[in-house]
């Protein structure tokens, strides 16, 4: 996450590494000192993060029922049965897990772009010459530092059938839904509205089959209205925090480059597109990565507001894993779910990293390496010839 290349567009020139530098005794001594200084942290991380993760992985391979230690002799090793139950074997456990993945995927698809765009927009506004800047900065950041419990409770009241949101919608003549108990999918409704299909009588082509225990119709439902309310809540809460990151990055965009672009006749949009945005690339990467990881782990809002209801449309893998373990005592299955979730996050973050990589910087690096190779091979040749 941190190894982000320098911004492209010639804003900074990456230093060319000095050729042919080898490790000296001094640097290996520094290595030992480095390890010594980081040892306490390494031990702590190992003890409280690494070992528990390995233990949880062991639990995911057993039929442990939550009594005594999962390492005692009475606990049966079942191999990858728990993974098979939630991934390959037809049945309710897989259906539940796939439903939760479906919900969470739609949630990510809406939350990450929305919160990133809004955060960037707010940061741009705050970075311009407006009055009462610090007031707005505080106002936008406020939801982020407020307890999610308090915010969730406020949203429950805002979004009840007779709540403030429906009151406002009523003013413009819209009869608002009963948000947190409405399980209709947004895409189903949109398709119905456009006349693509009849939501109460979906096309057989979509309902008849589909991958992994859910029909195509279910996969393509879009977020339910209840989940949409959660999406609004989360975007509202988190945009302010990411805004601050963008704001910090914006203030680092060199003014002279902006000015140069202006001298070259670039208009506001061109300056944003070709100067500001490339300079924000590392921050953009950071924000989307943090957003992606955070949204795949959504738990507290579901726990507080909807508990997976209505009709399981707000069930998420993290919440399902929690209930499987603590409510129904299926610890192995719950642990397996969290490892599948972990794998999904790792894969998606890797893909995202690949997609958002800085092609110019990579090309530059490659060129530098090639140049270095050429130089060192030529120097070796010289040495060889000299030796002769």
């Amino acid at each position, binding site marked *: 996450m941190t190894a982000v290349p320098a911004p492209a567009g010639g804003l900074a020139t990456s230093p060319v590494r000095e050729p042919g530098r080898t490790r000296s005794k001094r640097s290996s001594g520094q290595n030992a000192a480095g390890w010594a200084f980081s040892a306490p942290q390494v031990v702590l991380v190992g003890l409280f993060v690494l070992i528990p993760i390995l233990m949880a992985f062991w639990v995911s391979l057993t039929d442990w029922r939550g009594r005594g*230690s999962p390492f005692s002799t009475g606990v049966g090793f079942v191999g990858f049965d728990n993974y098979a139950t939630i991934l390959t074997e037809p049945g*309710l456990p897989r259906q539940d897990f796939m439903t939760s993945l479906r919900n969470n995927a739609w949630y990510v698809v809406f939350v990450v772009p929305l919160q990133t765009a809004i955060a960037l927009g707010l940061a741009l506004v705050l970075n311009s010459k407006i009055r009462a800047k610090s007031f707005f900065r505080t106002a936008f950041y406020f939801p982020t530092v407020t307890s999610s419990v308090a915010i969730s409770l406020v949203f429950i009241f805002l979004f009840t059938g007779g709540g403030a949101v429906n009151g406002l919608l009523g003013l413009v003549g819209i009869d608002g839904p009963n948000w947190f108990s409405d399980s209709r999918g947004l895409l189903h409704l949109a398709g119905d509205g456009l006349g693509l299909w009849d939501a*109460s009588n979906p096309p057989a082509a979509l309902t008849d089959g589909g991958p992994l225990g859910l029909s195509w119709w279910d996969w393509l439902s879009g977020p339910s209205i209840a989940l949409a309310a959660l999406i609004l809540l989360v975007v509202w809460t988190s945009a302010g925090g990411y805004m601050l990151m963008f704001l910090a990055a914006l203030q680092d965009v060199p003014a002279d480059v902006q000015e140069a672009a202006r001298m070259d006749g670039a208009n506001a949009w061109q300056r944003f597109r070709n100067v500001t945005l490339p300079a924000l690339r590392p921050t953009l990467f950071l924000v989307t990565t943090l957003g992606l990881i955070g949204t795949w782990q959504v738990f507290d809002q579901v726990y507080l507001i909807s508990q997976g209801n209505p009709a399981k449309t707000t069930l998420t893998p993290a919440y399902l894993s929690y209930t499987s373990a603590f409510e129904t005592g299926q610890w192995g299955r719950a642990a397996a779910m969290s490892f599948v979730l972990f794998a999904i996050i790792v894969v998606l973050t890797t893909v995202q990293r690949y997609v958002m990589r800085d092609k110019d910087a990579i090309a530059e690096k490659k060129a530098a390496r090639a140049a270095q190779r050429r130089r060192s091979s030529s120097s070796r040749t010289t040495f060889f010839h000299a030796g002769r």
Partner: protein
Amino acid sequence: MRHPIRRSAQAAVAVATLSLAAACGGGFDDSAEQQDSGSASLTMLIASSGDAETQAVQAQVDAYEQESGNTVDLQVAADLSQELAQGFAGGNPPDVFYLDASRLADQADAGNLYPYLDQVDDLDDFYPNLVDAFTYDGTQYCLPKDFSTLALEINDAAWSAAGLTEADYPTTWEELSTVAQTLTTGGQTGLVIGDTRDRVGAFMTQAGGWFLNEDGSEVTTDSPENLEALQYVQENLAAGSFAYPSAVDAGWGGEAFGTGKAAMTIEGNWLVGAMEADYPDVGYTVVPLPEGPGGAGTLSFTNCLAVAADSDAQDAAVDLATYLTSADAMTALTQDTGVLPSRQSLADAYLEQFPERQAYVDGAEFAQGPVNAPGVEQVLIDFDSQLGGLATGDPQAILESTQTNLEQAIGG
């Protein structure tokens, strides 16, 4: 969302704590070593509805400490099932704890419970179907501390406004449909019931059906009786005379009833306390649930005082559990908490004090307890989520999928 890194750190720490608690709970293969005779120190974990209940329990526990010389550390859980899970995983569970009947089979199957009913002398004073709710696989595990049943609550003002009299209190499904239709006017729905098995299930028992057969050995969800029950509820939902709380913008049946959005609701005796606290001005009458084609039926909800298999003072724990369910203690504990005494011998005295709770107590004779089989919770949650869409759904398909899932859960 807001701080993903901090959140994963929290999660990691939570996992770490739990795993370490599990690993360090006194070695990997610890068996419960009993405390030596003499005074024992016990821990007791309860879920409490509020200060009144906590203080009532504490008073009884204090009395027990005086009498026995044992010490009891009474803890009130914020989330009972989670705190129990941590106790079991750490090998150091509370000695005595509340256990809901719906959780019994899972806990018994995992070997977490110490059955002690063979040490109880006056077991036949407890309602047999409550004891059955705490019997799994032929073993009777723990003593029911109290119970609740469902009944039909009727708003007096709405009832007389519709021109109905006491003679019209519904005793059959047909009569219930009729009065519900009569009572449905403008902003008022005839009957509002929760959209879960804990309410709709009552109609299943009245039709003569249930999820499992009597001894819990066979899944009988996909039966004509259950279908009849779901179809009955569906017809009335479609007619608009029945509604779920969410449809009238209420959190539960009691809220709809108290605010006048419902003329009738089906709730348990906990409604009495809720009405007193939140809607003291609403006059209402409690009558037994109407009979269906299969006769009278209601559901019971009960907690027992369970003793942990890993308790290191099992004898003292059993002692405490029997003390707290003795006639004297039970009389005191069912005083202010709105629950019914689980001893048959206490029913008369209780009804003398609370005559308006007759319909709840009467239900005890035939009330159906929760589904008593391990590993079925997710299936029942799924059933509930399908009930949410019953108005436009296919009852047959709901029962079929639940039948399949239950068979899979119980068989596997």
